[in-house]
């Protein structure tokens, strides 16, 4: 037993030296996650602002100008120019000059004055479905605001209350900032890729160099090699988690409202699981190139597409929703969002922690089992 610990210690110390001497590993482990958080955090914003709006105003009245002002006042739409005729809309879309075209027909002001229904047209470039959806929602809200003003003006300044009003309070992320939604998911995604890649190279490298044969001629056991390889990367992963979450808190003001112990336990389990997945890939492929490809495919795609990071799991077709149950990032993201944004703890998150623990155990068991001591 004591000798076993000495052997694991020797393996871990050696691996730590490799990490310290290899600038690529350090870059991969520390610089890459930070870089990705900053790039994604700033670049991948799901907030739609400044939608370029071209205006085709046939009415040219104070009322029509008031409507355009209402659209552009909050900078949700940005006026990019006036169109001379309706046919120019297609060209504006094609050239990418505008994503929305507002057409105010002649007689708009007159119809309003007569108390009739005045119709304006909003053309949207729907090639980006998500952006269109948001633009539509904004336009609807703006139209209601303008309608209310017109009605009020018509009634000579008398206050009217709408007969029905539904008020929505958005909790946890009241400003609807996408950074708050993205950073937890991003944390899981970045850690998944980097951790799987790190360990997948670690064992394959020993096979390629032939040092695995040397290692096998010593009394070191299979589980000892797996654990010895895992420990230093686990420490490195811990530093990564702290780094990424600190960056999230600093740069994007991501709060931490819940129990940080739960977060720490979840991080540990998730790291072991992902590092274990890398070890399994390494043990099976024995080749750094193949291991790299297998890692990116098996870590990146599910963690991006099936984890709820970008696409809500509830909206997925049944097959994909079922598949998402075996993606550990899914559970880690739930814990991250829970602890950081919602302030939840053990009581709510234990099933996710359980799944993370299960995955970690499976990965370590599978890599140990698949680890052939004998040489081919």
């Amino acid at each position, binding site marked *: 037993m004591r000798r076993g610990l000495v*052997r694991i*210690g020797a393996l871990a110390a050696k691996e730590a030296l490799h990490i310290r*001497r290899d600038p690529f590993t350090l870059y991969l482990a520390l610089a890459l996650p930070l870089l990705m958080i900053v790039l994604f955090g700033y670049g991948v914003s799901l907030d739609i602002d400044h939608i370029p709006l071209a205006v085709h105003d046939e009415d040219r009245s104070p009322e029509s100008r008031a409507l355009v002002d209402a659209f552009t006042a909050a900078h949700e739409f940005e006026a990019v120019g006036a169109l001379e005729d309706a046919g120019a809309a297609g060209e504006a879309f094609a050239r990418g000059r505008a994503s929305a075209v507002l057409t105010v027909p002649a007689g708009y002001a007159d119809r309003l004055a007569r108390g009739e229904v005045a119709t304006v047209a909003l053309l949207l470039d729907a090639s980006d479905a998500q952006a269109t959806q948001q633009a539509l929602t904004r336009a609807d809200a703006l139209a209601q605001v303008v309608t209310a003003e017109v009605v009020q003006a018509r009634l000579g300044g008398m206050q009217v209350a709408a007969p029905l009003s539904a008020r929505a309070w958005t909790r946890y992320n009241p400003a609807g900032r996408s950074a708050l939604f993205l950073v937890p998911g991003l944390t899981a995604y970045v850690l998944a890729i980097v951790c799987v890649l790190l360990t997948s190279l670690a064992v394959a490298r020993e096979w390629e*160099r032939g*040092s695995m*044969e*040397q290692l096998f001629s*010593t*009394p070191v056991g299979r589980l000892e090699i797996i654990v010895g390889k895992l420990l230093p990367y686990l420490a490195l992963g811990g530093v990564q988690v702290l780094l990424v979450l600190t960056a999230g808190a600093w740069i994007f003001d991501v709060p931490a409202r819940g129990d940080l112990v739960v977060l720490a336990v979840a991080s540990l389990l998730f790291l072991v699981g992902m590092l274990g997945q890398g070890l399994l890939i390494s043990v099976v492929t024995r080749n750094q190139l193949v291991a790299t490809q297998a890692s990116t495919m098996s870590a990146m795609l599910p963690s991006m597409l099936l984890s709820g990071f970008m696409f809500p799991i509830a909206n997925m077709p049944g097959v994909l929703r079922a598949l998402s149950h075996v993606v550990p990032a899914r559970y880690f993201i739930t814990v991250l969002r829970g602890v950081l944004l919602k302030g939840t703890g053990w009581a709510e998150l234990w099933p996710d922690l359980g799944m993370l623990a299960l995955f970690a155990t499976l990965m370590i068991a599978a890599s140990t089992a698949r680890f052939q001591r*004998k040489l081919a």
Partner: protein
Amino acid sequence: MSPAIVVDGLSRRFGRFTAVDDVSFEVGRGEVFGYLGANGAGKSTTIRMLCGLLAPTAGDAVVAGARVSTQPEEVRARIGYMSQRFSLYPELRVAENLEFFGGAHGMGGRSLARRLEAVLERVGLAGLGRERTQDLPGGMRQRVALAGAILHEPAVVFLDEPTAGVDPWVRRRFWGLIRELADGGTTIFVTTHYMDEAELCGRVGLMVAGRLPALDTPEGLKRTHAPGRVWSVRGGELPPEQARLRLAALPGVLDVQSMGAGLRVRVDRHATLGADDLAASLSGTVEVEEDAASMEDVFLAVVDAEAQRVGTAAAFGEA
């Protein structure tokens, strides 16, 4: 005292290919046992089985008192192994490499530190512990590798072609170390394809195509497999091939081999054929000198005999 290594009917097949075919021998304690053979003859496969790295398909071996088939962990604890593709970690310092291999054998603390100093001293690398392994020349790296294999004071050390690709002077020095280790009681099992290294072993096993057709001291091997007197013949006016045929046709000549610029002629000890007869059979100025049989003569004779026995050139065990 029981022998350090007992090998009994050891075989290893890979699919239809038989890499090691029913090999049996014993190695005594403190002996330097050489394993000579061409590339692909089965030397490395044998060593891997003896180190518990590869399971035999038939037969068994006892190494340092532990059975390879049933106690591979025990075997690994008692042996040192220096593989052919030797694998120190180049970005680690010399001492870090050795500390790792010591740790892998469960050594640690003060005793490891003391032992490390002693081993570096022994292989002539005292004070070089802080050097990066990749910065050392090949010969020194090899001695570091040897230090790694003997750090935990194993009873048996396996060296798989330890001197491949190193210049002769460095090889000599390395063999001096091997000799010292054996004198200290460690059993050395070393594979090589250098004939001059085979001469330095206590006993030599000759491997051809997975079989072990010859095993003896270097002198014994020469007596059995390359008997007779050996003459070195240089000069003459005939083209080499013609000269070879002319000499081979003389009564009492056993064998003629090309050797550098000349020919080596092995003659039956009881034949009356002398240096003058050899010279007279060729025209022009011919230089004839008596020479000693070498391991090379032995090797070629054994390979020839095996080829005839099997009846095909497969006996050469092309890699």
